[in-house]
C-alpha cells in the first residue's frame, strides 16, 4: 500500500520532479561557494543565488531590493535573527496565540531574561485574530507586532492587511511569519504594511529542508546577531553591515537554494492561485467528509474563505496520537498529531487536555482518491468508539 501523505504543513512531499532534478544537476555541476571566486562555477552559483533572491523578492515585495532578501536554515532560524535583532531592553512585543514555538520561544527567552515585555493576543472561535485587539495591545514602548500569517494548526489566514495598517499608524514594526503561506497565499509587503517577512523553503515553496530566510524592509533596524565569513571585505574586523551580508554568514546552502529556485519556478509556472484553489477544493471535500461522522470534532474549519488546506480534528474517546497511529499503521496515511509546536492554540481550544489534535494537510500532489481514502479511514476509526 503506497503512503498517502497528508503532512504537507510539516514538509511538503513529494516535491516536483524538476526540484529533485535541478538540485542534483546544479550541485553536480556548480555546487561550489557562490561569489567567493572568479571561476565559472562560482559565478554560476552566485547567479543562482541572486536569481533566487529576485524570485522571492517578487513574491513578497514586488519591485523591492533583492539584496534585502537573506537566506537562513529555515523560518525558525530567521525568526530568531529578526526578533533578537530588533528587540532592545525595555521594548514591548505584541504577538498572538497562533504563533509557533519559533516565535514563542525567542520571545520567552527575551522576556525571561528581562529584556522585553510581551502581550499575547488571542483568536476568536473561528480561528482569527482581531486587529482591534492588537491595536489595543500596542503601547508607547511597543517595538514590534509578530503575527503568524497562517496558523499551522488551524489553517486560518489572518487579516495582515488590517493589522499592517494599525502598525503603520502606531509606528511599530510588523513582522509576519509566512511559514505556512508563502507560495500559496499572496503576500505584498507594500500594500499590506509589512516590515519583515519570514519564510521557509520546505513547505509551500516546494524546496528542500534546510533553506529559509527573510525579507527586511528599508528602515527596519535589525542588528546582526551572528557574525562570520561573508566573502567580501575579509580584512574588516566587524561583520558587514549591508544586506544581504548583514544577516548571512558562512557559505550558503547551495543545494537548498537550487531546490528552492526550482520549486518557486514550478509554482509560478503552474499558477499559485490554481494550486491553492485545487488544494482548497480537496480540503473542502475532506472537511465535509469527516464532519459527517458524529464523534469527529473539527476545529475552526467552517469554510474555504481565508483558509489554507490544513484541517485539525479529534475523534471523541480517542487521544490524537492513537488516531494518528491508526491512520499510519492500518491505512498508510501520514499525518501529524499533538500540539504541532503551537501550544498556545491548543490551550485556547482546550485540546491540550487531549494532547492536541490530528492534523491533515494537503499539498499539490494530493488527489481526490487520497481524500476519499482519508475520509473512509477516519470514518472507520470513529466507528470503533461511538
Amino acid at each position, binding site marked *: 500500500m503506497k503512503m498517502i501523505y497528508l503532512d504537507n504543513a510539516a514538509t511538503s512531499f513529494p516535491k516536483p520532479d524538476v526540484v529533485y532534478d535541478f538540485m542534483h544537476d546544479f550541485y553536480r555541476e556548480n555546487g561550489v561557494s557562490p561569489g567567493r571566486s572568479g571561476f565559472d562555477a562560482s559565478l554560476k552559483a552566485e547567479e543562482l543565488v541572486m536569481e533566487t533572491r529576485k524570485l522571492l523578492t517578487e513574491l513578497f515585495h514586488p519591485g523591492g531590493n533583492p539584496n534585502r532578501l537573506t537566506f537562513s536554515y529555515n523560518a525558525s532560524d530567521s525568526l530568531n535573527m529578526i526578533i533578537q535583532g530588533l528587540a532592545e531592553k525595555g521594548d514591548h512585543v505584541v504577538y498572538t496565540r497562533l504563533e509557533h514555538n519559533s516565535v514563542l520561544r525567542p520571545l520567552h527567552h527575551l522576556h525571561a531574561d528581562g529584556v522585553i515585555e510581551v502581550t499575547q493576543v488571542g483568536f476568536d472561535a473561528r480561528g482569527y485574530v482581531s486587529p482591534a485587539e492588537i491595536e489595543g495591545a500596542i503601547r508607547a514602548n511597543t517595538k514590534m507586532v509578530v503575527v503568524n500569517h497562517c496558523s499551522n494548526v488551524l489553517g486560518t489566514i489572518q487579516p495582515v492587511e488590517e493589522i499592517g495598517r494599525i502598525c503603520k499608524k502606531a509606528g511599530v514594526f510588523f513582522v509576519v511569519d509566512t511559514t505556512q503561506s508563502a507560495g500559496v497565499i499572496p503576500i505584498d509587503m507594500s500594500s499590506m504594511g509589512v516590515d519583515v517577512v519570514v519564510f521557509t523553503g520546505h513547505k509551500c515553496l516546494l524546496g528542500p529542508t534546510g533553506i529559509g530566510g527573510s525579507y527586511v524592509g528599508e528602515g527596519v533596524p535589525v542588528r546582526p546577531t551572528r557574525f562570520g565569513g561573508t566573502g567580501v571585505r575579509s580584512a574588516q574586523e566587524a561583520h558587514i553591515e549591508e544586506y544581504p551580508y548583514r544577516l548571512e554568514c558562512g557559505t550558503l546552502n547551495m543545494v537548498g537554494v537550487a531546490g528552492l529556485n526550482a520549486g518557486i519556478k514550478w509554482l509560478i509556472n503552474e499558477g499559485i492561485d490554481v494550486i491553492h484553489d485545487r488544494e482548497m477544493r480537496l480540503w473542502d471535500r475532506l472537511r465535509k467528509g469527516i464532519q459527517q461522522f458524529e464523534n469527529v470534532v473539527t476545529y475552526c474549519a467552517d469554510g474555504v474563505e481565508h483558509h489554507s488546506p490544513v484541517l485539525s480534528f479529534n475523534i471523541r474517546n480517542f*487521544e490524537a496520537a492513537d488516531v494518528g497511529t*491508526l491512520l499510519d*499503521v492500518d491505512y498508510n496515511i501520514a499525518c501529524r498529531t499533538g500540539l504541532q509546536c503551537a501550544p498556545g492554540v491548543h490551550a485556547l481550544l482546550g485540546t491540550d487536555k487531549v494532547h492536541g489534535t490530528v492534523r491533515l494537510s494537503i499539498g499539490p500532489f494530493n488527489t481526490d482518491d487520497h481524500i476519499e481514502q482519508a475520509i473512509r479511514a477516519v470514518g472507520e*476509526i470513529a466507528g470503533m468508539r461511538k
Partner: protein
Amino acid sequence: MEIDGRAFEVDDTGYLTDPSIWSDDVAGLIARHDGIPVLTEPHWAIVRCIRRHWEEKGTAPLVRSICQTTGIKLKELYELFPLGPSKGACRVAGLPKPDGCV
C-alpha cells in the same frame, strides 16, 4: 499497585518498574486491572511479540512491526487492548514505559 491481593511496584504511569518479575500470571492480573477479563490467543500473540522484542533488543517494537508480525490489524489491537499498544499491550507485557517507539 495492588491487584487481587498482589502488590506490584509501578511508576507514576502504571508501568512495572522491574520487568523481570513479569510472568503469564502477572500479565493476566494487569489485564484484569485494565478491564480485560481473560487474555485470549490474539492477546497472547501480541503480548509475546512485544515481550520477545523487548527481551532480544531491550526496546519496545514499532507498532507497525507488531501488526506485521502477528497479522493483527491495529484496529483489532485497539479492540483487544482498549488502552492501545503502549498503555495497554506493553503494560500487560510487563515493559517499562516505552520511550516513544510504540
